[in-house]
């Protein structure tokens, strides 16, 4: 399962949106079968990075290479769908089926949501919707699952369950997972590698080592103690208001 095959190779990309450098020289590889979690504060460019990987936006510079014929299953942060579209869960999923898709029944079973099949989309709860969106991402039998904040709008209990589910799905589909998360402690047990980013990659590695990394502690400590203007820095660089690196000594990339 953990073959060294590279699914995605991101080579030193920059994304500039509206004059702001949202992604700053990010390099990152995703190997087959591994779970990679992107973590970072709001507006750190996590979703932008995901959009670039999906081909929804073009990097201003740098290259993104994906394995030929790579099947990506994408679960967006939220669904834009208008309430006036009369769709039940099964029909919703059916719109996204292709010739090679796994069956809707199987996908729903794998996210434990078979009972929702005939339910109108307008009547499902936040947690249920996340499962339906996950089922949708599974339809293509993906080699890479891309999940943008998969636990958004789900209560704590549900979040733990959802991460557990994602872990199980990885084992079932032998797919790699790239997901965005806010909370390292919740994803710790269900992730192989953590990338901590704030426009650039601050630190990365095994979840345990990242949680002890000063760059990580600075990034998240700052949020926790937001009322205190000055915060002691014990690491190689710091960020100004826009998240740019102020003190640019050597720091980790990728």
């Amino acid at each position, binding site marked *: 399962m953990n073959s060294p095959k590279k699914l995605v190779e991101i080579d030193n990309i920059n994304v500039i949106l509206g004059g702001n450098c949202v992604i700053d020289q990010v390099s990152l590889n995703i190997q087959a079968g591994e779970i990679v979690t992107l973590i970072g504060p709001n507006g750190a460019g996590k979703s932008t990075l995901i959009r670039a990987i999906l081909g929804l936006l073009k990097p201003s510079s740098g290259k993104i290479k994906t394995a030929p014929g790579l099947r990506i299953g994408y679960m*967006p942060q939220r669904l834009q769908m*208008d309430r006036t579209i009369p769709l039940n869960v099964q*029909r919703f999923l059916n719109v996204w089926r292709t010739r090679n898709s796994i069956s809707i029944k199987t996908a729903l079973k794998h996210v434990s949501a078979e009972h929702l099949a005939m339910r109108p989309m307008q009547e499902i709860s936040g947690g249920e919707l996340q499962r339906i969106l996950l089922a949708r991402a599974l339809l293509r039998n993906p080699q890479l699952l891309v999940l943008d904040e998969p636990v958004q709008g789900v209560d704590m209990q549900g979040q733990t369950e959802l991460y557990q589910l994602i872990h199980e799905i990885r084992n079932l589909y032998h797919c790699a997972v790239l997901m965005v998360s806010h909370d390292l402690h919740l994803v710790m047990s269900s992730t192989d590698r953590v990338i901590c980013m704030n426009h650039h990659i601050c630190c990365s590695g095994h979840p345990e080592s990242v949680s002890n990394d000063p760059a990580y502690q600075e990034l998240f400590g700052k949020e926790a103690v937001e009322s205190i203007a000055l915060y002691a820095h014990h690491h190689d660089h710091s960020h100004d208001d826009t998240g740019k690196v102020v003190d640019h000594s050597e720091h980790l990339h990728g």
Partner: protein
Amino acid sequence: MADFIWHALLAGIGVALIAGPLGSFVVWRRMSYFGDTLAHSALLGIALGIALDMNLNIAVIICCVLIAVTLVFLQQHRFISTDTLLGILAHSTLSLGLISIGLLGVRVDILSYLFGDLLTVTNSELIWIFTGTVAVSTLLIIFWRPLLAITIDEEMAQAEGYPVTLIRLLLMLLMAIVIAVAMKIVGVLLITSLMIIPAAAARRLTKSPESMALTASVLGCIAVILGILASVEWDTATGPSIVLAAAVVFVGCYLIPTHYLGKPKGEAG
């Protein structure tokens, strides 16, 4: 019944048949103001057609598509909100159309373009309407799935590899065709209502996108028939009579008690 009534009924039904499904997309995508803007710009198309001495239907289609493309282009630059942009374009194109027709110095019955003139539909206009109906329904059937996909979630559709911009353009082309053929029926000021009222009424009765689109066609036909009959009976303006009939159908649909519709509570949204 007199011949002109049969002509009117056929023309009205032809338009209602395609206005239903397209109107459903307008409702789902919250594009009613957008449709209004396109319809208003149709008058500019008439002026263009007269000036260039070309078929007025084609001139209207071209004009609507151009306005739609301009809108999409301006929208992407986001220097002003879409809502405001639509308001500016809707009324400036309408005014430009009215003034251009005046300046051309030809005798044109502007009121018939604004509010429709269904009772004078000619054979050649009927042929136009049914050609438009067949073309639009064929395209809708062929591209139903991609159209539905971008309507559910554009970004998701894009991530799945759908050519979102092209499909959006197709939808605009379809709207332009409907506007061109429907102008005769209810006029540029009322076209959007013929699209969205039957679709909104159908929402209450249906559980799938396809059934909503088809039910909207049927309800539109009912509104057209009721409107024309009422207009002949009481000598009222035909276009507005059809729109009012559609509104009555809409209210009727929402007055049906939920338990008659046999669906779980809360779905009718």
